[in-house]
């Protein structure tokens, strides 16, 4: 009786999927910039301690969706979000939710490295300071060191913590920004094309880092590079023209996608 019915297979898959708890759930998420609609009823789940990659051609809404997860869209004039996004079951757009607290739990790393014009130490200590995560100087030192270590930057900068963060190389700057995000001890880290401004060696380092971070954090990464998505993620979601085309295990997505459009995009037929 090794032959399973189709229904049984489905059930098994379902079980396997449900084994990993959902960290964030997006339900019917739509985003408008003024009169222009950027996202159409996206339903997408983010699993705990998983790297979820969002792929798709330029302007497909993947960055927009990413920014709804920690409400960074709030800072854009004329942006409106409908639908529901939950973090551990709480609606993040609920009026009772403090957006500042949400962003402390859902950190973000941007496309272009954007260290503050302060020292390396101050860059990392910024988050812990404003959230009061360290009670003493020694504790703060420890947080900074741990964060830099987690970001794989400690050995490179430990002797020049007081030098300016803007003086680092591009790849180091981006890892500094990751350390800065990690220092707040978020639960989820959002990365918006974190390697698009980096050279291949720096990219490899950041990708390695993403692998390691996965054990402690839930990661959502937007990327233009399908190879990168295949390398770093376990789950992949494909966006096209503001719609979620397909969400699947990365292995399946890149070998045997369900949707023709995904197939075409991965094969390089458009995008």
């Amino acid at each position, binding site marked *: 009786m090794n032959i399973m019915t189709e229904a049984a297979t489905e059930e098994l898959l379902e079980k396997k999927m449900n084994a990993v708890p959902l960290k964030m759930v997006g339900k019917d998420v739509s985003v408008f910039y003024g009169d222009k609609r950027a996202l159409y009823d996206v339903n997408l789940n983010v699993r705990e301690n998983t790297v979820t990659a969002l792929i798709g051609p330029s302007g497909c809404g993947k960055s927009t969706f990413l920014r709804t997860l920690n409400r960074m869209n709030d800072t854009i004039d004329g942006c409106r979000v409908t639908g529901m996004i939950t973090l551990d079951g709480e609606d993040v757009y609920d009026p009772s939710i403090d957006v500042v607290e949400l962003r*402390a739990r859902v*950190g973000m790393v941007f496309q272009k490295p954007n*260290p503050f*014009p302060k020292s390396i130490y101050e860059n990392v200590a*910024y988050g812990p300071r404003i959230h009061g995560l360290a009670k003493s100087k020694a504790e703060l030192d420890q947080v900074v060191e741990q964060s830099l270590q987690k970001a794989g930057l400690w050995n490179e900068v430990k002797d020049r913590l007081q030098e300016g963060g803007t003086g680092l190389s591009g790849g180091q700057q981006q890892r500094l920004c990751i350390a800065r995000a990690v220092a707040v001890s978020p639960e989820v880290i959002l990365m918006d094309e974190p390697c698009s401004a980096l050279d291949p060696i720096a990219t490899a380092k950041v990708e390695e880092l993403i692998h390691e971070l996965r054990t402690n954090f839930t990661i959502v990464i937007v990327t233009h590079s399908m190879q990168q998505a295949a390398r770093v993620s376990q789950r992949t979601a494909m966006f096209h023209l503001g719609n979620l085309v397909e969400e699947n295990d990365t292995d399946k997505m890149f070998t045997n996608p369900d949707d023709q459009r995904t197939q075409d995009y991965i094969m390089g037929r458009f995008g």
Partner: protein
Amino acid sequence: MSTTLLFAILLVIAVVAFILGRMRAGALSQGRSSALHSRPNYYGAFAALVAFLPPLILVAIWLAVSPFVINSAVRDTFPQEVKGQSQAQQSLAFGMVSTIARGLPWLSEDEVRAVKQDPSSLQSVFAGKGVAVAAEAQPYMLDSAATLNAMAQTSRTLLSALAIALSVVGAFFALRVVAPRFRARNQVERVMLWALLLASSIAILTTVGIVASMLTEALRFFNAVPAHEFFFGTVWDPRFAGAGASSNGQFGLIPLLAGTLYIGFVAMLVAVPVGLFAAIYMAEYASPRMRSLAKPLLEVLAGIPTIVYGFFALVTVGPFLRDISAQLSGLVTGNYASFIQAQSVITAGIVMGIMLIPYVSSLSDDIITAVPRALRDGSLGLGATRSETIKRVILPAALPGIVGALLMTASRAIGETMIVVLAAGVAARMQINPFEPMTTVTVKIVNQLTGDLEFTSPQTLVAFALGITLFCITLALNIYALYIVRKYREQYE
């Protein structure tokens, strides 16, 4: 021929040359525009420029030089005894002659003959024609005046003939040069380049001229009063001009400088917090609609003439402060004597501060908005509030630029005149009570240069020394501010 008419004729020739040049270019190309190096309009413009510019330069030089030539020729006709007189008297005589020369064309021939027979009647005859002659005319003056008129007439006719001839020759030359491969566009553009250069050098040359004239006058002042007495003197008491050498006053700069800096300081105390907070609100918090409404309104403040601020201070703020201080002292001591004078450091400072608010806010606003959005996002993405982002990331990043903006504002405060003239008082004193009047460098410049003046006395010349001092202070502030702002710009590039 008058100069205006001459210019009109030259312009007409230029326009004709333009039209002919364009037509000729069109004819040469036989309708195929690709055969021409430049667009037909450029050939026209080239012809017009060649027809107009050389005569223009000729006219300019001629008009500048010819008066000197005529002047010396006329002086040569003066009788020997006049030539023997002093330079000043000769100038006086020449002045008379040119006045008479101006009046002569108005007289009929009979009147001219009558005046020639009786030079003493000249004054009354000329007065009847509306020309005032200062003193009794000498017989030789009529002859000299006639010579002057004749020479001026000749000169003008000659100039007109030469200019028109040059223009016509230029036009023909240009038209002859026009050929399909002739690079008219490059030529015209080179002329335009020179025109642009000329325009930009005018501003620079004017600045140099102003500084030079101030310097020479100031040097004359320093001949009368030693520089150290001016720069380090603590008493300002210039006395009256012309009261004699015995009453030479004291020209100490220090009390004026103290007043200037004190009032400027009070003004900055008002303008910096208000302007900076307004800028932060505009740049970070205001909705686009609010911003589009409030920003122009705030900048209206910058458009109000400072004299209006001055009488606002004089009529409203000063009396208000005086009355409120009377009430306060009445409440505390029972004696309703005001301790703030209507004209005081604080009145002038507050009103000047209000005047400076738009400068501070609009300069700072530009600088704050220039901080890259990525830094804002980075901070907000870490869970910082807007306020924390502004305090810990944006302001530190914008600080050098803001300091530069504040220095520029300070230099405005130091150079400001009308408000302090009306609101600060004229007492040159050194004291630290902000409720008492003090005076500033600008106020004293105005004081020393108004009224009946003898222009060679130190009492007047001191104004130039004050002016050049003020100029140096504001220049230094501006240069330092520019240096800081430029350094700041490099940060994000």
